Each structure stands twice: as C-alpha cells, then as structure tokens.
C-alpha cells in the first residue's frame, strides 16, 4: 500500500498506520486505533468491480499456490478417510515408533498408528472449526465496528475500552480460560474463537467506517431521512466490504494458529480423533528418543495450511489495494 493512500491520522494520542494484515493476532496489538491500511484498501477498491478483482487475483502465482494447498487439504478433509492407506485409529502394537518406510511413508506413532493416515485425516476438524469461527467473529465484529465507527462518542469510548481490555490478553489465554469453563468441544471452540476475534475485527471495521462516515454520501443519506441502522448496513457496509474481506482471510490464518495451539495444549480437539496439534502434543516427548517423524509431519501440515491461507490473504490485499 502506498502511504499516499493513507487517510489522515486520527486525532488521538495513539499512533496510526498498522498494516491491515498485521492488525493484532494472538493478543498482539498496537494501539487500539489501527488498521489504517484496511481503510486504504476500502478507499482504493471502491471503484473496482468483482470481475476485475477476480481477473487480477488469478494472475498471481501466490494466489494459485495458496489456493492449491488449501484445496488439497479440503479434499483430504472430505475424502481422506477413503484414500488414506490405513485407518487413522488402528493400532499396531507390534509396530510402534517405526521409522518411515515403504509400508508407512511417514512412519508410525507410539501406538503403532500410521502417521501419514493421521496427517491426511487430521485436516477435517480444523477445516470445519476455523472457517465457522472466523465467520462468526467477522459478523459480530462487523456489527460492533460499524456501530462504534458510526456513533462514536461515549459508546465508542466505552466499547473501545472493553475491546482494549480484551486485547491486553493473549488470545490463547482468553480462549483456554473459557474452554476450561465450558469443556472442549467443536461448538465451544467455534464460539470461543469467534468471540475472541470479534474485538480484533471490530477494530479494523471501526477504522474503515470512521473514514466512510466523513463521506458526502453518508451525510446525503442522513439528510434523506435514513435511520442509523440503514445508513450503517446499506450505505457504509458495502464500502467497507473489501477491508472486511482482507481482515477475514488474515484472521482465518490466525484461527488455524489458535485452534492448532489449543489442540496442542489439550484444550481443542481431543484424542484419539486425528488432529495435527493434538498429535504433536501426544508425541513430542518422542523427539528426545529421535522419533522425529511423529511430530515433524503434522507440524509441516499445519505450517503448509497457514502459509497457504496467508498467501491467499496477501494476494487479495495486494489486488484490492493496487
């Protein structure tokens, strides 16, 4: 993004200019007034029709690579149980901790389960939880952010403080506090991660909505007698959609980060269901005995998925901001 595109700094003690992509992840944030780039995206992409965006997107190698990897894992999640060489749950107790071989390409784990099969089928739960959680967080965050940006004043101040207080804690810690309370389940994970993402997304949407509010069309529609809800959702929302889209894809990457981390800590997907994070936790002690294949392959699976999502997110941001 070019600095020229950036709207004026907001008049407050906090500093501006945080790239949209980096707008706070696991509790990492800059001051509450951030996400200037998101507004740049919003401003730059206003005149761009969807077809053009797609055409530009498909020209990018990074987008193709990212989309290819994500598609691969989606296929594994849906059909993995059909084409995995073994059942991910079958234990061969005479064949534990076996190194990679032609029979077991990725070796076997401490219970003699085939690591390749567990890596293939382990994509399912994480690919169900993360999109749903991100969608939930995006919807709630958009509503909150629009309201904060539109109304401003005391409402913005109070909501802003609450958002800030949540941002002071690393997401993983808030999430596991609530998961300990509610008990780990797929539903809990979706709700908790969605709620934890809400303030982060609200912050971006608020910044974008504040810029939009200054535009003439908003004043015009208010003079026309449109109520606040209508102005927010029919007038402002369509113009901040690009910023929300960028935020959504980046957030998706962090949702994978969060779910994998919670599973690793034992607060996410529970054994024996194959899951990358939980499998790494179950086997990382084996690293000391040299059984690297039990943890390395699930680790590479997680890394490939998050990097793929980030490649897509970055492509979208580049296209929208160009």
């Amino acid at each position, binding site marked *: 993004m070019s600095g020229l595109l950036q709207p004026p700094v907001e008049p407050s003690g906090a*500093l501006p200019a945080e790239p949209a992509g980096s707008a706070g992840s696991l509790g990492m944030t800059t001051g509450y007034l951030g996400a200037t780039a998101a507004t740049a995206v919003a401003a730059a992409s206003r005149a761009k029709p969807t077809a053009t965006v797609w055409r530009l997107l498909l020209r990018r190698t990074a987008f193709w690579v990212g989309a290819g990897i994500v598609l691969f894992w989606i296929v594994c999640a849906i059909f993995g149980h059909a084409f995995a060489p073994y059942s991910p749950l079958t234990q061969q107790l005479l064949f534990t901790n076996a190194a990679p071989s032609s029979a077991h390409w990725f070796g076997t784990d401490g219970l003699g389960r085939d690591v390749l099969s567990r890596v293939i089928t382990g994509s399912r739960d994480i690919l169900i939880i993360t999109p749903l959680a991100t969608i939930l967080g995006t919807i709630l965050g958009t509503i909150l952010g629009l309201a904060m940006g539109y109304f401003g004043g005391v409402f913005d101040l109070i909501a802003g403080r609450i958002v800030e207080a949540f941002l002071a804690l690393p997401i993983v810690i808030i999430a596991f506090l609530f998961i300990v309370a509610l008990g780990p389940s797929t539903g809990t994970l979706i709700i908790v991660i969605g709620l934890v993402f809400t303030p982060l997304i609200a912050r971006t949407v608020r910044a974008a909505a504040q810029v939009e509010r200054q535009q003439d069309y908003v004043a015009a529609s208010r003079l026309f007698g449109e109520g606040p809800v209508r102005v927010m959702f029919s007038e402002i929302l369509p113009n901040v959609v690009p910023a929300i889209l960028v935020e959504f894809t980046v957030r998706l990457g962090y949702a994978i980060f969060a779910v994998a981390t919670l599973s690793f800590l034992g607060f996410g997907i529970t054994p024996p269901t194959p899951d990358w994070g939980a499998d790494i936790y179950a086997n990382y002690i084996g690293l000391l005995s040299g059984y690297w294949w039990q943890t390395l392959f699930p680790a590479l699976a997680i890394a490939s998925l998050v990097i793929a999502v980030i490649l897509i997110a970055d492509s979208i941001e580049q296209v929208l901001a160009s």
Partner: protein
Amino acid sequence: MATFLLRRLGLMILTLWILSLIVFFAGQILPGDPARATLGPFAAPSAVKALDAQLGVNRPLLTRYLSWIGGLLHGNLGTSYEYRSAVEPFVRAALINSIKLALLAFVIVVPLAIIGGVIAALYAGRAADRVISVAGLALSTVPEFVSGVVLIVIFGVELKVLPVTASAGANASDFQQFRHLILPAIPLVLVLFGYIARMARAGTIEALNSDYTRTAILKGLPRWTAIRRHVLRNSLLPTITVIATQTGYLIGGLVVVETLFNYQGLGNLIFQAAVHKDFAMLEAGVLIIGAVYVLATLIADLLLTWLNPRLRLGGAE
C-alpha cells in the same frame, strides 16, 4: 502535555479495571468446586465445606470480588488453592524466568525486524519487499510449537548442537542457561518478526512519501543521507509502539513455548493453574500479563512523546 499524560494514565487504569472484571468473572464461571478439586473425590463433605470456608469461596460474588481487588491493591495476589500458600512467590519466580526468555527473543528480533522492514520499504513492491513481507506474515501465523518442533528436530536431534530443554538445572552457569534459552527463543522471534518488520516498513514508506523527504531529495541531499537523517528518524517512531505492545504477547504467549521446552515461566504457570483449576493462581497470572501489556503501552506512549517534539510541545491531542 500534562493533560495528555493524565488522560493516558486514566485510560490505563480504566483498562486495568475492566481487565480485572473480565479475569475475575471468567474465573468464577469455571466449573467445579476448588476445595473438591484440591481434596479429591473421596474427601468427606465436611472437609470440603471447611476448606471452602477457609478459601472464602462460599461468600457472595460481589464480596469476593471486592476482597480480591482490595487484596490486589495491597499487593496481595491471593492464596493458591493447590499449594495453599501465597500465590506471589510462584508468580514472581515465573515472571522472572519469562522475562529472561522474552528479553533474549527481543534482543534478537528487534534489530533484525527493523532492518528487514526498512529494506522492504526501500524496495517497496519489488522482489526483496515481497519476500520479506510475505515471509514475515507467513511466519507470524505459524504456531510456535510448529516451528519449535522443526527447530528441535534440526538442531537438537539431527545436529545435536543445542539443548532441547529450556532449563539448565539449578546450579548451571549463566552461560549454560543462556545456551538452553536459544532454541526456545527462536519460535518467538519468528512470530514477532513479521509484526515489527511490517510496522517498520509501513512507517518508512509513509516517511519516504512525505513532503519533508521530497524537499530533502530535491535540495540535493544524497539519497542515503536523506534516508538516514529524515526518513529513519520519523519512520521508526510507530515501530516503538508495536515493539512495546508485543511485550504483552511475549510474556503471555509463552504458554506454548514454555510447555514445549518445559520451562517454568508465567505461561507455564497459567497453563498448569488452568489444568489444576487453581483459580487464584490463574487470576493472578492472567492479571499480571494484562498489567505488563498495559504498562508497556504506557511506556511506549511516554517514549514517543519524549522522542517526538510535535507531541511533546503540545501540537497533538
């Protein structure tokens, strides 16, 4: 200037207070009876009741909140349900350990990330920029335990050059302890690099596009002199904010690294407290992290005000 500081201080106290509410009530909705959890399923109901009374968990919610917050204001962090002794020594020891690890990560990441960000900005849109920006963003989304596992496999298991546990033992020398902390610090460095580099890049690009830089170039200053004197001075200011706010993450987000490398820090303390339902310990640990974050933000604000004459002389706010 004074009103600006007072305002920041007021906002900080407000944030801390809301944080204490969140932490306290999150702790209260956790299921299970602390006395029952401590004494085990076979303890007599009368013993459970007595311990509940001793721990004070059978009092009304508001009373408990007020006595908890009152204790905090007097520097009393509460009594651990699990160890039945004051939480404070545990939290203090863990905090010191975490600070050591966090400090090492900072010392490595800050110069690297600033250099990376500035290079990306100077070559904005070109290959070097794309590589630094995308790699930084991608690395910041790879969970620490994933990069940690890869590092352990490479340096601990295959090359055998670095120890794979974070604690060197009680009577290890400082140098040995330092060697043990290198591997755990790298996953933190990888996650932080992307954030700080992105901020340094954005700040530098903004300064490069400014009128004062254009003036400096037009009046014939050599490119590097202009960059050094005019661009970097201004561009690194916002980076300070992002570095400061990462402290909160560093102290808290250590949960994963400290678990993977078996290190007795604050993250590990909170994790263990959550597993054992030791609410007093959990609340104290989480609140400390929040306080560190809020404090770091305030320090960043003060530092910025001091470094930036426009803010110091009351132009802003």
